[in-house]
């Protein structure tokens, strides 16, 4: 048989190539290196995820804006028009919290079943499995960025200036919500393989979680006093989303106290913490989130060994 003897095809020696080790347990360090090396796969998975989601729909990616717009409209109608909460610029207030919450919810919701849904792939092709839930988070980030653009447009339309002193905190807040969503996503994706109920449980849990975060209502106006008298403020802030949502609201909605549009009395909308307090709180949370994320990867590593036989 004849073969082309092209010199470029000649295989170079492998004596110095790096060695990959497959053993019962991949340590955290190599796991992170591996993840970093496969970032291109992550990117491709995110792109294909988004493509598939809006494939064949006429409005396509526009849905990622329409969907939250409808939610926004409904909440506005119910709380501002019907229930008359009297918050001025309620749309801005709602939207600034909702973008952040949507990112978290989209990520966790998609990631929870992702290993089970892609069983065919997981059983046949080798790649770091945590990339699948991380890709779900990645798609959520894309939708988040789109919605942030819409939020900025809103600010222009309503001539509403953000708190410029807070802007520099936003990247940290974003990192926090990213890491938190990734942590929950990675852990839930792995556990769902063993307990399929978690997917349904998560749906319910996310609803509860939403109302436990100050997205629709004002934390200072509705909750702070009661929480204070019962000494459970700390408990409330055990939910990382609470602080993150407040940071976003403080940045975009700005005003800590406003005059009610109904009767003109003063409403305390947001905590009167200084921007530096938000900065320190977010930094402290970042440290916690990094640790949590590493713990999540470790848990995932423990659980992934039996994926093949459980799927």
């Amino acid at each position: 048989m004849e073969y082309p003897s092209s010199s470029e095809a000649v295989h170079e020696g492998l004596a110095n190539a790096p060695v990959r080790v497959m053993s019962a347990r991949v340590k955290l360090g190599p796991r992170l290196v591996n993840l970093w090396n496969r970032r291109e796969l992550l990117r491709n998975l995110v792109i294909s995820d988004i493509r598939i989601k809006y494939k064949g729909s006429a409005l396509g990616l526009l849905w990622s804006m329409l969907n939250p717009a409808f939610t926004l409209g409904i909440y506005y109608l119910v709380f501002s028009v019907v229930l008359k909460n009297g918050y001025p610029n309620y749309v801005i207030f709602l939207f600034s919290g909702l973008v952040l919450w949507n990112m978290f919810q989209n990520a966790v919701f998609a990631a929870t079943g992702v290993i089970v849904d892609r069983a065919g792939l997981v059983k046949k092709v080798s790649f770091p499995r945590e990339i699948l839930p991380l890709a779900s988070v990645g798609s959520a980030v894309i939708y988040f960025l789109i919605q942030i653009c819409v939020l900025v447009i809103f600010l222009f339309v309503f001539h509403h200036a953000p708190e410029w002193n807070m802007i520099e905190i936003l990247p940290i807040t974003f990192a926090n919500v990213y890491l938190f969503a990734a942590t929950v996503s990675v852990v839930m994706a792995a556990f769902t393989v063993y307990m399929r109920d978690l997917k349904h449980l998560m749906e319910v849990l996310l609803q509860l979680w939403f109302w436990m975060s100050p997205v629709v209502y004002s934390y200072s106006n509705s909750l702070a006093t009661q929480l204070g008298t019962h000494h459970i403020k700390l408990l409330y802030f055990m939910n990382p989303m609470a602080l993150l949502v407040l940071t976003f609201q403080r940045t975009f909605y700005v005003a800590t106290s406003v005059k009610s549009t109904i009767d003109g009395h003063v409403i305390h909308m947001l905590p009167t913490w200084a921007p530096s307090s938000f900065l320190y709180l977010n930094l402290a949370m970042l440290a916690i989130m990094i640790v949590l994320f590493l713990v999540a990867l470790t848990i995932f590593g423990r659980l992934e060994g039996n994926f093949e036989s459980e799927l």
Partner: protein
Amino acid sequence: MRATVVDVADVTKSFKIHYERHQSLKERLLHPRTGHSEEFVALKDISFKVEEGETVGILGHNGSGKSTLLKCICGVLQPTSGEIRLRGSLAALLELGAGFQLELSGRDNVYLYGTMLGFSKKRVDQIFDDIVAFSEIENFIDTPVKFYSSGMYVRLAFAVAVNVNPDILVIDEVLAVGDERFQAKCIDRIRRFQQEGRAILLVTHSADQVRALASRAIVLESGNMIANGPVAESLRIFREHLLGDTPSNVVNESHASDVHIDSITTPTGSFDVQSGASVHFDVHVTSATAYSGNFVLEIFSRAGVLVSRSDAQGAPINLRPGHNTIGIDLPNVPLLDGVFDINVGVLDPRGSNVKAWSEKVATLQVTYGGRQSGLVELDASIRQA
């Protein structure tokens, strides 16, 4: 010095077999510790190495653990203990197209699958045209793969895996894809891989494929490695274990080792033959009991290509207890010059079980004075019509 690209060290893999699977929360809560499970050891202390440029066949019956071993090497499964060290990039053809997204176009899937196999977008960019050309689906590359025929689907996946030029290629029973022409193309590509000094792991239960492609063979039997050596030697052990390990459908048959092939002789004492001449072999077989079965003769070229397999054509060979001679006549040997290996064996009447097998029992030296080349002499006459 050639580097070791795959180093499997003391790998054991065990699975828990659940007799009742409690996968929902309710079931887990109701039956916290029931639903007994059993430990099943799929691989026991497997150790071997593969060097650059080697093609290693992994042989075994269904359930012997060969696919588990392969999945461990590819990283789909993690070994329960022991470790596997890999040097260089690896592409596995475990199930072709497993990574494809039906809604996406062929083009998108090539990139997705390529990166899933661990190659950069840049590398996929470089070889994209080769992939498309190899898969022969130029006109459909921008069509969602859900509209592909199964053949197109598999061809595209195979094309990606071989064109990314991995340092280690792992193939699991996938050479049976596509039509014959495409299969030939795949084999061709595998041979090129070998020439380029890449390592190949070939998992199969086809002895022919191993003989044709591999330089070494490993035999697995219920999770144990029972052979690791030259192809002929491993194939002999593989066949012997076919005998020792009687599947349930032949339980009541006499134990296999009571039939033994002693030797093969020719009346002239020589295995040199002129092309076109006739030759007669006597195969000497010892049997402990009377046995009636089929007899098989295989002739292989030195390149490992099966030239011919013939059997007793429905007329059973009746072995008497003691020594038997089975005569084989080959009139007008149509082989061209070369050295051919002869395998003979006794099979049960259905041909599903080997009673005795002798690998490379003799080599046939054929000399030919004519002008044809290749393996066999054709009576072709070529003229202008």
